């Protein structure tokens, strides 16, 4: 495993969707395994919203030696997305013009911008062909964007619990999360805003059944109700804990910019239609949906599969039957693993 930072050459040549440019773009990335002589073993992993380049850390059941994405066989690349806060240029980075962190002066970015930056990274590694681009949630959007931007480079594409256009439900939850941060920023309390945004987000990544199984109505400390405003139910303490823990590893400005980028994602808007976005591709697709996901619903993944079926693409559509909701692909990974493994073996 190696961790490196790539320096984007001539960053001013990359005009972002918003029309602005960045004076400096750094991309933090990890590689695992060895690149083979004909470069036919490259797998690019695109991380979800709050992931980073350390794919082995956040996807430990899927990526690694002997696992579905076997780092003994494949050369795996994973980079922190533009706008992130784990080594890649984002709103928490220092603005070379001011010597201060960008904060809200950072230009608004899109999934398309992220992929353009990632393409420059891949080119810098001397790689022309990607055997598989894979990602869940926001990572799935990046995978689809890759196929749309660079159809000749991608042999196969695996979007998991993702969509071709982000739904108003997702936009709504993300907006509340951002509003919380923006309100708290006024009080110079960005971190507490982020903790609250994470709590809200976390609920949307689970499901009713998952919450019922994990917490039911169990109380955290006492056996009886205290009839007070302090957190009593286990689920409350859990969310508090998740919020606090998140603040230690994530930046609230990045959360603002990444969720906004997600909200803008719509292949119809960017390419005229999903058909136009994906028609040039000769990639094989594995579309993975999660039945209990009520945020990025199975019907959205199915709609993507239908488009690909109409376009006569090689597509496999699979539904994972799990109670864990959106987060299934990260936690309850057995079926995810089997599907990815089988698909990779067929390539």
């Amino acid at each position, binding site marked *: 495993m190696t961790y490196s930072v790539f320096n984007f050459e001539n960053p001013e040549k990359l005009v972002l969707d918003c029309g602005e440019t960045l004076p400096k773009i750094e991309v933090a990335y990890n590689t695992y395994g060895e690149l083979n002589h004909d470069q036919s073993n490259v797998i690019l992993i695109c991380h979800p919203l709050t992931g980073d380049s350390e794919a082995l850390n956040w996807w430990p059941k899927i990526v690694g030696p002997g696992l579905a994405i076997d780092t003994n066989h494949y050369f795996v690349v994973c980079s922190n997305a533009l706008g992130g806060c784990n080594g890649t240029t984002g709103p928490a980075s220092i603005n070379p013009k001011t010597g201060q962190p960008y904060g809200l002066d950072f230009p608004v970015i899109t999934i398309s911008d992220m992929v353009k930056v990632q393409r420059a990274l891949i080119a810098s590694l001397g790689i022309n062909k990607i055997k598989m681009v894979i990602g869940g949630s926001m990572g799935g959007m990046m995978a689809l964007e890759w196929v749309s931007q660079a159809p000749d480079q991608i042999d196969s594409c695996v979007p998991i619990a993702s969509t071709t256009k982000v739904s108003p439900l997702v936009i709504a939850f993300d907006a509340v999360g951002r509003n919380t941060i923006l309100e708290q920023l006024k009080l110079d309390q960005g971190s507490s805003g982020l903790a609250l945004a994470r709590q809200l987000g976390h609920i949307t990544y689970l499901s009713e059944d998952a919450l019922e199984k994990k917490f039911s109505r169990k109380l955290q400390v006492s056996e009886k109700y205290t009839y007070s405003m302090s957190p009593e139910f286990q689920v409350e303490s859990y969310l508090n804990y998740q919020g606090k823990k998140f603040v230690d590893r994530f930046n609230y400005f990045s959360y603002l910019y990444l969720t906004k980028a997600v909200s803008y994602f719509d292949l119809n808007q960017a390419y005229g239609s999903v058909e136009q976005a994906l028609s040039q591709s000769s990639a094989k697709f*594995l579309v993975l949906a999660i039945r209990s996901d009520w945020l990025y619903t199975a019907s959205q993944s199915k709609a993507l599969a239908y488009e690909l*079926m*109409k376009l006569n693409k090689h597509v496999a559509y699979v539904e994972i*039957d799990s109670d864990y909701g959106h987060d299934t692909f990260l936690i309850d990974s057995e*079926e995810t693993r089997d*599907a990815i493994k*089988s698909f990779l073996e*067929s390539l």
Partner: protein
Amino acid sequence: MKLYQKIVFNQIKSNERVLDLGCGSGLLLDKLRTEKGCEGYGIEKNFDEVIIAIKRGIPIFQGDIIEGLKQFESKSFDVAILSQTLQQVISPVEVLKEMCRVSNRVIITFPNFGYWKVRMNLLFKGLSPKTKQLPYEWYDTPNIRVITINDFRRLCYQHQIRILKEIPLVKNKFQRVFFPLRLTNFFTEKGIFILKKDEC
């Protein structure tokens, strides 16, 4: 492959585009691809079967047959196959019509309730038929449609679906050569039909 699968296999020409509904683990499509250069697509509900089909490199939709069928453009296949599943679908007529829409030819196989052993069951035991082909009790059977070969011929006639070929499934090779079609409803365990719906 079972006998009826071999018969279906033999009815498909080289390089045809094939849709297999209820394709299981994609065995037939795999053989068609490797031995006849066919291009295939499968629809299957069961996750574990789907995973095996994916490993075989079969493009596949996990879900409901009718739901999957509706996504394809008209005449996007040369052949659509529904093997041993018609008796399990809720809306067989809709499935049949959709198959005719998406495909040039349609191959249907189903267990024949007109088979003499089934009739004997009912006649002498007075019990809902249970045979090797139809091994279920009435209360746990997935076979919610009771179809005989005569029923099926009539359905095709009613919906102006042309029967291109009817293949009697008889195990004895000699019988297979000299089998009169009018006896199939009594003597065969399975109906195998090749159909086509002419454009109106």
